């Protein structure tokens, strides 16, 4: 297994109390696989990625339990040097907002070359040549000139490409993409998703795609984990999940989506709001909003119920839900 997250617990210690942001998150991704992490704001999908990368702000964030392993090696207890090495060459990450992820006072070329010179011991000229190759790879036109430009001279889509080039510079085995196309227009989003899929296929990279967009998930994911209030409520392969969701939250999310192929009647909604992480409800965190909640849901945390073919759903009534 390339990357494994197991029973990860993270809490934010704030002035208002302890927010339990992750409450036992486990997932894994292997070479050549695309794992989509689907969730709404506050579900913990980005925090999980930050914990994997070791870039959580501590304080207020504290990992209180769990394990993150890369090729079986525990990262949470690794030395800062070792983590840096893994961050550079093992697991790379790209972000939603490329403008704030890139340093505005250095050229795009410099930011790619820096890691090549530091980690690969390349000369200036070698690093420059490689940076141009990488910009070419992510289809930035006129890479030879663009390499000398600053991030503000790039359009939104070009910046996202530059950030991908930077993440790929040291040939990582896993790429974590946190909402990589959310800030982009739909025609540019399609270009970037095609590019990511192609690069991943060629390099047999593991791709962890964090998103709230069910459409994007349906187009690229092999497997999907659905997060809610710091927990994974369902995991399944893409086709099964969309054909027969196994958790009431996933099912409700799908029914609340307006469709492109028909005007449709009133949308089904999920009543209420996601819980405050300062006061996650006891039992199943979704029970106050769940259409089929019963007494047991408020008292007992549902186990991960296996649904066959590697699927699980954290619902007391998972078998009935998946059966329709």
């Amino acid at each position: 297994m390339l990357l494994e997250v197991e029973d990860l617990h993270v809490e934010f210690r704030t002035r208002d109390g302890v927010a339990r942001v992750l409450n036992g998150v486990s997932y894994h991704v292997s070479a050549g696989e695309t794992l989509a992490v689907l969730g709404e704001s506050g579900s913990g999908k980005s925090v999980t990625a930050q914990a994997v990368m070791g870039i959580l702000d501590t304080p207020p964030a504290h990992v209180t339990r769990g394990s993150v392993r890369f090729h079986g090696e525990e990262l949470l207890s690794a030395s800062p040097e070792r983590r840096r090495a893994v961050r550079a060459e093992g697991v790379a990450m790209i972000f939603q907002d490329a403008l704030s992820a890139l340093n505005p006072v250095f050229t795009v070329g410099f930011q790619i070359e820096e890691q090549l010179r530091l980690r690969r011991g390349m000369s200036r000229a070698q690093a420059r040549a490689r940076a141009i190759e990488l910009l070419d790879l992510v289809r930035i036109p006129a890479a030879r000139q663009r390499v000398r430009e600053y991030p503000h001279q790039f359009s939104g889509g070009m910046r996202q490409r530059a950030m991908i080039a930077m993440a790929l510079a040291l040939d990582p085995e896993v790429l974590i993409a946190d909402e990589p196309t959310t800030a982009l227009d739909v025609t540019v989003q399609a270009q970037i998703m095609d590019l990511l899929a192609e690069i991943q296929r060629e390099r047999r990279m593991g791709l962890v795609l964090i998103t709230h967009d069910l459409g994007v998930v349906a187009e690229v994911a092999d497997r999907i984990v659905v997060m809610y209030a710091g927990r994974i409520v369902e995991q399944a392969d893409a086709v099964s999940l969309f054909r027969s969701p196994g958790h009431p939250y996933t099912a409700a999310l799908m029914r609340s989506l307006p469709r492109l192929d028909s005007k449709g009647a009133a949308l089904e909604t999920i009543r209420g709001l996601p819980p405050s992480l300062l006061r996650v409800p006891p039992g199943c965190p979704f029970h106050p909003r769940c259409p089929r909640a019963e007494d047991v849901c408020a008292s007992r945390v549902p186990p991960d119920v296996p649904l066959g073919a590697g699927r699980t759903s954290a619902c007391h009534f998972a078998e009935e839900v998946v059966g329709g």
Partner: protein
Amino acid sequence: MGELLEVRELVKHFPVTRGVVFRRTVGRVRAVDGVSFSLRAGETLGVVGESGCGKSTLAQVLMRLEAPTSGTVLFEGSPVFGLRGAALRRWRRDMQIVLQDPYTSLNPRMTVGDIVGEPFEIHPEVAPRGSRAGRVRELLDVVGLNPEHLNRYPHQFSGGQRQRIGIARALALRPKLIVCDEPVSALDVSIQAQVMNLLGELQDEFGLAYIFIAHDLSVVRHLSDRVAVMYLGKIVEIGTEEEIYEHPTHPYTQALLSAVPVADPTLRGRRDVIRLTGDVPSPVNPPTGCRFRTRCWKAQDVCATEEPALAIRVGNHPSACHFAEERHVIP
């Protein structure tokens, strides 16, 4: 029935200036460049397009928050840009706006009651002083908020609830038309559906017309009777929801629809995929002729020299392409 709103050849250019002391105009951003459409009472017109296409500027000009460079807008037959004094105030009651960002469009130092009741300060004839608190409660109730919360501040509400506050404020003066500028794009999926349903219910209840501006094509289809597609300051295609989504004839509309990811993994690799290259050109210096030609796979010489008019060439709805033809792109 007559048209509620009629927009004719609306243009809004912003000057691009250089220098501080000796400021001079070096160019113009052609944000809206000759837009015409009309809207009937109780109807919803969706406006879609990518960033920089001018859809938000259009909203600002229609609301008279920005002065137009040229063009006319008729509201119930009278020209909006000529209104002054009492007539202007009267018109402002009829047309209201809901903005995208529920965090910055509400004053954090005002209570919800004051925010929703503020329109009555400016238009006291709508609700006499004594009846205002009751009116505000009613409005909060109509948009699905607890009327007892009128003394709370915006930060005590979630994003979806704040958008409801913005809608209640827009409803206060019983408008005939509400311009909604990306009203659900900052919201999570489960909350977005609630707000979309609310907008639909309010339309049925009060006979509202909407101009619904958004970049999400599924959201626009769900709420709109007719749809206008904008590209670089111009409408490139306009028609009924059915015509635009099922029978698009402009290459840009087709590319836009084809690029929307569809939530069905079994359709992977089986869709009609149109991938545009490059980004939208700068509105300061738009391409000659057809503005879409630099990204269009059908472009010929004529597209660079002759601007295609928005006219019916095939089917029943207008499209601004010399080579308009129908192509079904949604699976």
